[in-house]
């Protein structure tokens, strides 16, 4: 299989090379190739968005990036260094720089711990500073995310969804990470507070120089917050490029279908009528289609698509795609 090559940039805070992650199925008889040959760099200070349908492997990439799980193959470098080659102690302290936040704040917070104890916990586990210093840092983090300090005495069930997600963010911030993987962090929030939390992420990035990997299936969210977007399908990237390019001039047929399927809150006069309705559903990653994985749902698929895996190529500056026909201005449907 053709490994997905990628640009190498000196400013990469994370470099992923031909990453593969497989899981045994529960009956132990097959392997789910959740991530199957993905390469990319995350640049310092940027927001790198990853979109794709359920089961395409987004969370798996996120977890691998922060070494919550070990790649089956390929490499993940942090600042050019392989953390897995570090001595144990160094690895443990290194990991604090790379945090992950998940969708459900309820699952991340212990219902029997006060908010303040939850925020303090990572500092205590890391034995960072004196007790007074830890408290100061926890309060700073709460203040940063806009949580009143008296909320510290409360329990999770006494907070709203948006407040709980702020607690989780504060908790991740206490260790002063360099990079945060945000996995569907606004999906569980009500619509009127989503904006608030997205604004908070943007503000923290500006003030603290954070780098984000922002995972979501919500196109509007990802294109609002990201500098670059990667589109994932069945364990691989099919397209990667600057947000404006990917969302306005997509090169891959799957990206086009995904964009056109997004329901838009616009009056009928402004919506046009260009929906590409994909047939069928995403195939199983246990036994993906040969050649191009999207071919079973692609209206442009040709014979060659079943035989040959499309190369991952930089068709335009900084804009990568994996499709045999992406350079033809109008592919012809079969």
């Amino acid at each position: 299989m053709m490994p997905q090559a990628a640009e190498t940039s000196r400013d990469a805070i994370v470099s992923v090379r031909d990453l593969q992650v497989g899981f045994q199925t529960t009956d132990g008889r097959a392997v789910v190739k959740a991530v199957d040959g993905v390469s990319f760099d995350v640049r310092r200070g940027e927001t790198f968005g990853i979109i794709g349908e359920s089961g395409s492997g987004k969370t798996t990439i996120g977890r691998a990036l922060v070494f919550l799980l070990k790649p089956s193959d390929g490499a993940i470098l942090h600042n050019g260094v392989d953390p897995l080659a570090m001595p144990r102690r160094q690895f443990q302290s290194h990991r604090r720089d790379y945090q992950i936040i998940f969708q459900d704040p309820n699952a991340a917070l212990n219902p029997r711990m006060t908010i303040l104890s939850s925020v303090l916990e990572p500092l205590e586990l890391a034995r960072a500073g004196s007790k007074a210093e830890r408290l100061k840092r926890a309060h700073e983090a709460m203040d940063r995310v806009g949580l009143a300090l008296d909320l510290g005495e409360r329990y999770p069930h006494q907070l709203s969804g948006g407040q709980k997600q702020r607690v989780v963010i504060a908790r991740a911030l206490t260790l002063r990470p360099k990079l945060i993987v945000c996995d569907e962090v606004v999906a569980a929030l009500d619509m009127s507070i989503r904006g608030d939390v997205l604004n908070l992420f943007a503000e923290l990035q500006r003030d603290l120089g954070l780098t984000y990997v922002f995972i979501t299936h919500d196109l509007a969210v990802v294109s609002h917050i990201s500098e670059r977007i990667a589109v994932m399908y069945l364990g691989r990237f099919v397209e990667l490029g600057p947000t404006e390019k990917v969302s306005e001039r997509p090169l891959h047929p799957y990206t086009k279908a995904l964009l056109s399927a997004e329901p838009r809150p616009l009056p009928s006069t402004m919506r046009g009528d260009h929906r590409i309705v994909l047939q069928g559903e995403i195939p199983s990653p246990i036994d993906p289609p040969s050649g191009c994985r999207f071919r079973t749902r692609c209206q442009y698929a040709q014979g060659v698509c079943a035989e040959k895996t499309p190369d991952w190529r930089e068709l335009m500056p900084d804009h990568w795609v994996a499709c045999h026909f992406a350079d033809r201005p109008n592919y012809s449907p079969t």
Partner: protein
Amino acid sequence: MAAAEPAQRMSKSAAGGPQALMSVRGLGIRFKTSHGIWQATRKIDFDIAPGERVGIVGESGCGKTITGLSILRLLPNNLAGLDGSIHFDGTDLASCSTREMRAIRGRRIAMIFQEPMSALDPVFTVGHQIAETLRVHTGIPREEARERTLDMLRRVGIASPVRRIDDYPHQLSGGMRQRVMIAASLICGPQLLIADEPTTALDVTVQAQILELLRDLSETSNTALMLITHDLGVVAETCTRMITMYAGEVIEDAAVDDALVRPLHPYTSGLLRSLPHLSPRHGKLPSIPGRVPSIMDMPNGCRFRARCPHAVAGCEKEQALLDAGDGRKVRCSRFRELDLAGALQHAATAPIAAMVASP
């Protein structure tokens, strides 16, 4: 695929009057809880005309689901009381006998839910479940029921229905299960279909298929659709009218395009403005400060007051659902003086404009 004709969606409400299929008036739902009686919703008024597609939107907990359930009298056991009336084609569903309700439920009014697995019985094949529904309500012979089931599966876009009709629910993907649920709910040709978040658990590409299916079926068979969702995009793509709820009340009721372009209630406007689709990329998203008041601690008068940038003295008085002309209704006494932003305010510079422009 056909997007609704703009002319049909602007300012021409089918609501009200003698032609309504269903008229809900003063609907309120109370629950018994360990903290006493909770008034979960109150003063809910709306109409649905035959073939009309109405979106019910609002935040979590505002009362969308229980409003849908109350129409079929499927409310949980701790119901303390149902106030008001639900006139459906000559019958008041809020007060009719259990027997009358049973003849209507599933046959003339059907409902589908977010998670189809919970509504499908895992031990029967999907074909059996659909055909039985039909036989219970019509008593037609088994052979004929199977034929009509096959036909219905085909209509909802199940490829090779002959192969699928004898599958069990767990053998189907999430999108196929939702299609089966839709087939089961439409098999008796209901006049009204209530769909509660039917696509929330599905991927966007599958969601697009299901929404298109619901729209087409409603158009071809003149089935009225009550679509419950928190996604304004889903309403814009599917519905003709939009009812916005807040903290247990209806606060705005308008043709979809009117509500999107020129919302009359500050809450509807705030929601639209906070959508990332509609804001300049990387810009600060407008947000609504504060949170929905708790059901145990509802303020008097306007329930949105504590978060409303336009609140003035007088807003603490009881707010009625006012007639705003053109079939629009709004629960805000200031609606005439306010000039509120809608979906178009930023759309020209927002990512969505590019999405519209792209092929």
